[in-house]
């Protein structure tokens, strides 16, 4: 029994480091308790359902909540825009044509042939 418990609590040796989720979890728990304690020293002035809880929009009227949801296509726009070149070639490759799928297989097999069978 002790052996099983010992095995369960064992630290994962990664060769040049280690990983023990139980130790990690304990540290996170301690950090959470410290954070929560500090938070409890704060002002208790929050009043639900008052002006306090409304979003601040520089005096503008709050728009329709449903329409304010940012759609997936708009997320990471900057990232995809800056990698436009990469994405344009990637999209070209992923054309959904089965002939091209097979062509890629032939290309990779050809490379393997050249390198491993030694057609030099």
């Amino acid at each position, binding site marked *: 029994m002790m052996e099983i418990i010992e*095995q*369960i609590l*064992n*630290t*994962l*040796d*990664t*060769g*040049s*480091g280690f*990983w023990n*989720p*139980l130790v*990690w*979890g304990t540290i996170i728990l301690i950090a959470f308790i410290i954070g929560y304690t500090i938070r409890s020293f704060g002002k208790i002035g929050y009043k639900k359902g008052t002006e306090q809880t409304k979003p601040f929009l520089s005096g503008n009227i709050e728009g329709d*909540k*449903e329409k*304010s*949801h*940012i*759609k*997936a*296509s708009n*997320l*990471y726009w900057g*990232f*995809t825009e800056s*990698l436009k070149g*990469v*994405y344009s070639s*990637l999209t070209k*490759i*992923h054309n*959904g044509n*089965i002939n*091209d*799928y*097979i062509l*890629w*297989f032939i*290309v*990779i*097999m050809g*490379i*393997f*042939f050249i*390198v*491993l*069978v*030694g057609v*030099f």
Partner: protein
Amino acid sequence: MMDYLLTHAPALIIAVPLLGAFLTPLISRINDKLRNIFVILTLGLTTFLVFLLANDVFTNGIRTYVFGHAGDITLPIVRILFEIDGLNAFMAIIGCLLPLIAVIYSWSFIKENTGLDKYYTLILLMTAGMLGMMLTGDMFNFFVFLEITSISSAALVAFWTNKGKASVAAFKYIVISAIGALFVLFAVAILYGQYNALNMAVLANNMSYSFLDKIALVLLIAALAMKSGIVPMHMWLPDAYGRAPSSISIILIGTTQASLYGVLRVCFTLYGSNLTTQINQIGELLISPAVLIAILLIVLALATILVGVLMALKQTDLKRMIGYAAVAEIGFMVLAIGAAISTFQTNAQTGITTMSTTGMVALKGGIFHIINDALDIGLLFLVAGAIYYATKETSLNKLGGLARNMKYTTVLFLIGLFAVSGMPPMNGFASKLLIYESTYQINPILSIVAILSSILLLAVFVKVFHSVFLGPQQSSFKKVKEVPISMLIAMGAIACIIIIFGIFPDLILTNIVNPAAQALASNTPYITSVLGGI
């Protein structure tokens, strides 16, 4: 009774789902619920047998099972032989768990559809084929099981035939599978023509690494790599995973990994020490095949990770996005395998092939990641299915605010999100940490690319979390309800395994992953367990 079951477990693991497949249409005529229970029990029994066998293999070493022959093994080996070492047992655990979870999930998920007798029959056939690939010790048998798996998988990808795109995806899948299988058969024929044998141990023992052997090696690696979804031969994968019902997508992960297992078996066991003792000449450069294969695999792995992640980031269809994430995850495994092969070396005096400590860590990381990938991506597919079940929608642009209506599904998605992105303390972190640290010692760039891609993978699923679950409630989804209990049980079971694997990584590594890694480190035990007594 238990001894009898254990003795014949290798055969029963294939026979039970196979027999179940043929009985399912008959039972389906009696009652639908009875059929569902029958299928769950069939796969439950298969899982029990796999665990029984795996426990025996992990404790007592390699098991061989000769079909239709009770005595000692005699040459020439003409009978079908199953040889189960640590790696086979490890893969079989994945191969039985995924279908079992899928059929529990299917109880509610697929109940509105017609043709369910065929659906469950095909799942059982697919399971038999997949487990056959993972357990067989015979090359031709491997090809046969590969075909069984491919045909049943293609039919299941096209299960939603009312959606034209599913049929197109299935067509692509069957074309890719047929071509892959054809090249595997070609390679098997080359090996048989040379050695008059099909048994893997016999082939490994006689392997001379001739010109024809090299051709067979290329055909096997290329064909199985395509079936594993390695870039740039991955394009069928998001199509098939994305169009199949989610309950099938999760089993497809297992079939993909069965092909990856084939790559491992071919490189480490079939060719084994030949990859280090022989020398390839490229121009004036003399280099061992092991290093060449390692370089090729590492380059393909980096491409797989990067293309998978970048394409996933751009998708707006949830299931296609997870499909591309699955491609990236395969890259991590191949990277670890490539890194491990690069450290392969044979002692000139003893002739024994070994792997460096770094290589072993990489191999353990790669193998650990195989099961983690199956669980993490599997959970995400099931969550995607749950979202589709509740909303009939998979477009990320149309979804939103579902956390209000689907609290359990949201939590389960978060677990999958953290796990697949390699966030501590989930299982994905432990395996990725092993891969990062080992590849860093081989070349820091490999590790850097892997870590950055993992961060991008987190960004991908944060996008999903925001688009699907966060934000204000959408008027079209106001009446959406949480999914039925059977779907929650299936997703919850995977989530529990993910958390257990994450919190106790060393336990899993010591008991399940290490025997699998040891089985690959040297092919001598695999060969001697068949030929030792002859």
